[in-house]
């Protein structure tokens, strides 16, 4: 029983590996980026488990922005993948622009969350202390 499951697992692994190596290179780059982002998020969670969750908003902003970039990268991969018939003719450049806006927004919100101030104040120059 154990032997068959381990053989199954090996078969699984091998066929996955062979299928995956057939994907085009630009998609593989995106995949590596996704893995990197998820890995960073996991490191942050582990760090929080060690050190404690204060200040919570910094933790949340860090984790969620990592998850956010991962998700947006996956969206990009989906839209760029030629095998997805629903996204004909969008091409790399068109959706990349939308993704840039999304990422800029993500970055702004991340900064805002991290500083815990609600509606980012560095955009409005005022002489007040950051709390």
């Amino acid at each position, binding site marked *: 029983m154990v032997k068959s499951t381990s053989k199954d697992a090996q078969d699984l692994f091998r066929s996955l590996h062979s299928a995956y190596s057939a994907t085009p290179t630009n998609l593989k780059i995106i995949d590596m980026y996704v893995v990197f982002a998820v890995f960073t998020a996991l490191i942050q969670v582990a760090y929080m488990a060690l050190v404690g969750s204060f200040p919570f908003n910094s933790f949340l902003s860090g984790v969620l922005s990592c998850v956010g970039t991962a998700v947006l990268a996956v969206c990009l991969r989906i*839209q760029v993948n030629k095998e997805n018939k629903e996204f004909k003719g969008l091409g790399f450049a068109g959706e990349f622009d939308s993704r840039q806006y999304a990422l800029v927004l*993500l970055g702004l919100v991340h900064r805002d969350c991290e500083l815990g101030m*609600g*509606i980012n104040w560095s955009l409005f120059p005022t002489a007040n202390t950051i709390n």
Partner: protein
Amino acid sequence: MGAKKASPDLLNSSFSFKSLKLKTKQQELLLRVSILGLVYVLAFIARLFSVLRYESMIHEFDPYFNYRTTLYLTEKGFYEFWNWFDSESWYPLGRIIGGTLYPGLMVTAALIYWTLRFLRFFVHIREVCVLTAPFFASNTTIVAYFFGKEIWDTGAGLVAAALIAICPGYISRSVAGSYDNEAVAIFALLLTFYLFVKAVKTGSLSWALGSAFGYFYMVSAWGGYVFIINLVPLYVLVLLITGRYSMRLYVAYNCMYILGMLLAMQIRFVGFQHVQSGEHMGAMGVFLLMQVFYFLDWVKYQLNDTKLFQTFLRITVTSAILVGGIALGVGTASGYISPWTGRFYSLLDPTYAKDHIPIIASVSEHQPTAWSSFMFDYHILLFLFPAGLYFCFKRLSDATIFIVMYGLTSLYFAGVMVRLILVATPAVCLISAIAVSATVKNLTSLLRTKQKVPQTGSTKGVGSSKSSSKVTLDQSQPFQKNGAIALLVGVFYLLSRYAIHCTWVTSEAYSSPSIVLAARGAHGNRIIFDDYREAYYWLRQNTPTDAKVMSWWDYGYQITAMGNRTVIVDNNTWNNTHIATVGRAMSSYEDEAYDIMRSLDVNYVLVVFGGVTGYSSDDINKFLWMVRIGGGVYPVIKEPDYLVNGEFRVDKGASPKMLNCLMYKLCYYRFGELVTEYGKPTGYDRARGVEIGNKDIKLEHLEEAYTTSNWIVRIYRVKPPTNRL
């Protein structure tokens, strides 16, 4: 369809409409734009009844708080507003206003105000506040048009815009002067839904971004955003289950959820609820489920081999469910994920509030809805809704599934709580618009077909307006055209009755400012009772600036906004014990009440009394709620003490505790000498219809400071203890 364009030398040739022949597409566009323009104006002016009849003022209770905060925002700027701690309400506790409100409405009104000032229109902020709601109602009709176009076609969009412009369910909370969160929130709700449906349809990141922004606007505007954060995941779940999922759904939901969640956490009042509260866990669960689901889908596609995939599937699914279950269990058990709060839990279990939280049960707009309310607010839309559902099911697509789910869930909640009829209104209007548009389209195409050779294929005949089969004239039914004309006339008659009903309802029922009352005099002339404002202005001008006023929580916002004095409790009702203390003071004998009032530093007491005018929403009628809420925290107050045989009475047969409690004394002080109605004895209470029991009232620790001209509002001063200044 050949037609000439407008000739270029129009000025030279004689101007005749014949030379302005436009192509069909241009004609259609002109028609659509003009209809939308008319609907836009209609939505705005239908809400202006109270401005024309009374004056441009803020209505009711909650809008006064919103007005006060908007005033503060425009005067002091955004930073002061965001960090405002108010010591003028909930004395001596104070209230963190910056962190406990939804800023969307105030910021919107302030932005409009600043824009107008930039364009050199120097209007007062109150005018902007009064007209914000009608303005956003007009914008909602435009969004409804685009949404209808998305779900069905442009015809349905136009009908939806027209229906929602005058639907009483929406008008009730968005008349001019009703400066409340819902005015902006319904616009944000519909906008978010429209952008999300567009995102699912096109799979484009830009639309998903737009819907995240729409969601952020909704979170900033109203606590009802919980409806969106639960309906959208439910919709995604339904699509996954029915097998309609695709990559577009993945892109749309993920982008909206992550970005929307991050944006929503910028509002301090919402804070970290998106990761900590039980009401938001559904969205997160669906998010994780989607990741697993699409990952499995991708692996399946990669593998191309079912046997191996089955093993993989087994491993992943079991581990995912295990991990998810453990996380949820640990989170809920340890209390990290808070359970559903009382307000939303009572939507799922309507009997919960009555037994456990009397303060939620006492609000009149939280009561379950009667059928008459449904008929009053929806009229013909009530039976057009099921017809529209039928059409939606005939042509199922991602968009129609969404609107069906929105309609059914919102109607359920509308049945539980009167206030939520507002949330159901856009769905009901859209679905009814589909019914109307499809019916009219079928009937008119029947009218336009020429006689064809008799076919064996059957139509269902003109009698069934639900037929959408190919329209050919069946020779065996020679009066089809006449039947179609008759039905069309019927449809137009119904729609015209709807318009008449809506106008009548708006004029009679939903345009009263609540703070100014009107009645017909004996000769048919209109009498205005402006007692509330009279009393607040008396307070403003005749009391020391640091005076503290105790009243029931209904009037708190108005006293701070117009009277500019510190209050003990107000409509925010965030502290039940404080309100119970006030309730206890109102229902105790004068000596005990005096001790409580001294401990709270109360200088003035304000009560509302309707015995002279017959005004029935006064404090005596609300008294039992004061007793219940007070008794909920202080067991010394027992409700049966104030009742006689389970009955609430104020005449001679009333219980002695009732006849001598503070509220009774303050309301009926000197009332025993007054003749209110011809032929009745002195001290006849017109609101209860009885002669009061205790006419000879003496006050020991308070003295009468002011009674308004119709005795509606009465203010008493708390005397300092003897031997003190």
